[in-house]
């Protein structure tokens, strides 16, 4: 284990989330009386040791939110607490010191082209005033952690995109932060490289107890690494919480986004979602006990956060359909009938991405 990163903090008050954002707003003044509301009352709570993903289209306010956490943007109102510290109260040197406890990685890596890989990783240590010998040792360790032990002398221009992001991650970890902010860190990478970077983040999360807050427009990222997620639109969270809970909700936008099913315009169509259990016996029970016909129109099953998750679109016909639906709900399935669709405001995130 890495001696510089804090152990999973026992001293942290148990209940307080490591990142605690309350009622955050950010209004940009465009001049001539025109304003843009980038954040509109966001509440965000990220517990210690979690990977939390924020999903949304570009312009949804994700990036502004992330940049409010380390105060690269100063919010218009609301509070931002990281590790118990009120970030909005800090200025100058105190704010710079607090930022060192929050690592950040960037979509386009933001490496210094004039420095070698080792020089880039050393940068935050120089900022902190770490002595030279200690810096060199620390840099070597970090490069090993991200699997670039032999590339310390290369310049960023000589590396592939995935390698550059690994340097970015090593640099973000250098100061021993408790929190890592990831600003679309895999959006400039191909799917395979994206996977390896996400696996690295997951490993750092597990092994070092690193809390990760990431923003993305790619479904695959949420599916692959997140414990919790939020769907953002127009500066607001449409829904947020632990992934299994979100997916199990009958009107989950996240489920629609992650596991889209074709639209079927037939009478009696029902969308069923289930987590951590199989449905087939339930469906055959419907046929036996309620004398309804079950016609499966579309379906998908995947593993999310280590547990199976499935969605089915079925057509139910028969006298006792209502009773059958009640039975399904009682068995813990999320049921959405065609009669109560999602609020049709076009708020679903994009379906692109790995």
């Amino acid at each position, binding site marked *: 284990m890495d001696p510089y990163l804090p152990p999973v903090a026992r001293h942290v008050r148990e209940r307080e989330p490591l990142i605690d954002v309350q009622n955050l707003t950010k209004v940009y003044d465009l001049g001539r009386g025109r304003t843009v509301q980038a954040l509109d009352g966001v509440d965000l709570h990220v517990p210690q040791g979690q990977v939390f993903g924020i999903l949304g289209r570009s312009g949804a306010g994700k990036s502004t939110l992330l940049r409010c956490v380390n105060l690269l943007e100063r919010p218009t109102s609301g509070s931002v607490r990281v590790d118990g510290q009120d970030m909005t109260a800090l200025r100058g040197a105190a704010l710079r010191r607090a930022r060192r406890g929050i690592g*950040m990685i960037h*979509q386009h890596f*933001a*490496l*210094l082209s*004039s420095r070698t890989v080792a020089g880039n990783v050393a940068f*935050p240590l*120089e*900022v902190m005033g770490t002595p030279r010998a200690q810096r060199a040792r620390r840099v070597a360790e970090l490069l090993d952690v991200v699997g670039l032990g032999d590339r310390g002398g290369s310049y960023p221009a000589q590396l592939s995109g995935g390698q550059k992001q690994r340097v970015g991650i090593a640099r973000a970890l250098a*100061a021993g932060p408790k929190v890592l902010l990831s600003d679309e860190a895999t959006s400039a990478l191909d799917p395979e490289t994206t996977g390896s970077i996400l696996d690295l983040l997951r490993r750092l999360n597990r092994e070092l107890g690193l809390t990760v807050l990431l923003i993305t427009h790619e479904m695959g990222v949420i599916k692959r690494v997140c414990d919790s997620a939020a769907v953002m639109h127009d500066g607001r969270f449409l829904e947020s919480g632990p992934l299994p809970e979100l997916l199990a909700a009958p009107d989950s936008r996240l489920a629609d986004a992650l596991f889209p099913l074709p639209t079927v315009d037939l009478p009696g169509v029902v969308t069923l979602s289930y987590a951590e259990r199989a449905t087939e016996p339930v469906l055959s029970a419907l046929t036996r006990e309620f004398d309804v016909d079950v016609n499966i129109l579309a379906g998908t099953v995947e593993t999310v956060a280590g547990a199976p998750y499935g969605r089915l679109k079925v057509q139910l016909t028969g006298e006792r359909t209502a009773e059958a639906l009640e039975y399904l709900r009682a068995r813990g399935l999320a049921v959405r009938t065609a009669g109560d669709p999602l609020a049709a405001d076009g708020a679903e995130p994009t379906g692109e991405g790995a």
Partner: protein
Amino acid sequence: MLTELAERWDELGPLLFDGTYATLYMVGWSTLFTALFGLPLGVLLYATERGRLLPAPWLRAVLGAIVNIGRSVPFIVLMVAVLTFTRFITGTTIGPTAAIVPLTLGAIPFYARLVETSLREVGRDVIEAAEAMGAGRGTIVAKVLLPEALPGLIAGLTVTVVALVSYSAMAGAIGGGGLGDVAIRFGYQRFDELVLLLCVVLLVVVVQLLQSLGDLAARRLSHR
């Protein structure tokens, strides 16, 4: 022509040598002082822009105006206009040393603009990343902006040096000497085509050498 040169070498050799030396002397010192003052001025022009490190629109407007005035005054006029200042600094108003003052004053605004342009090339994301790591303004200028822009700063300085070579030809007007001065007085005004030609050739060689040197340095320092 070569035979003519050989015949007149005793006369022309020292003339051309002194001219070349005076040119390099004026250009060398004024380049040094231009870098010394132009670099901070360029950084200030860059940093005071809205949304940069040290937003100060008012200060920027004033600096920008001074720089623009400095750049629009013809060099020959500037040279005469700053005579008092030149005497204050160097104790004289004639000779190559005196010429360094107006040359420097003329080149500072020019170089400052080039510095500003190079600094703008540095990505905002890199600066923001440094901010996110807790770096202060001074650190960002010293460890991010200047190193990242270094190839551009060198290239800008090379352009400035070449401009200084051509400005220095005018220094003859205040007895500054140099190849330009030799070309005008001994070549043009005395209808001595050989001297004129040799001066031009030497100037071309000097410029070529300086430019190649600058290109080489910029290339060596660039890791993009």
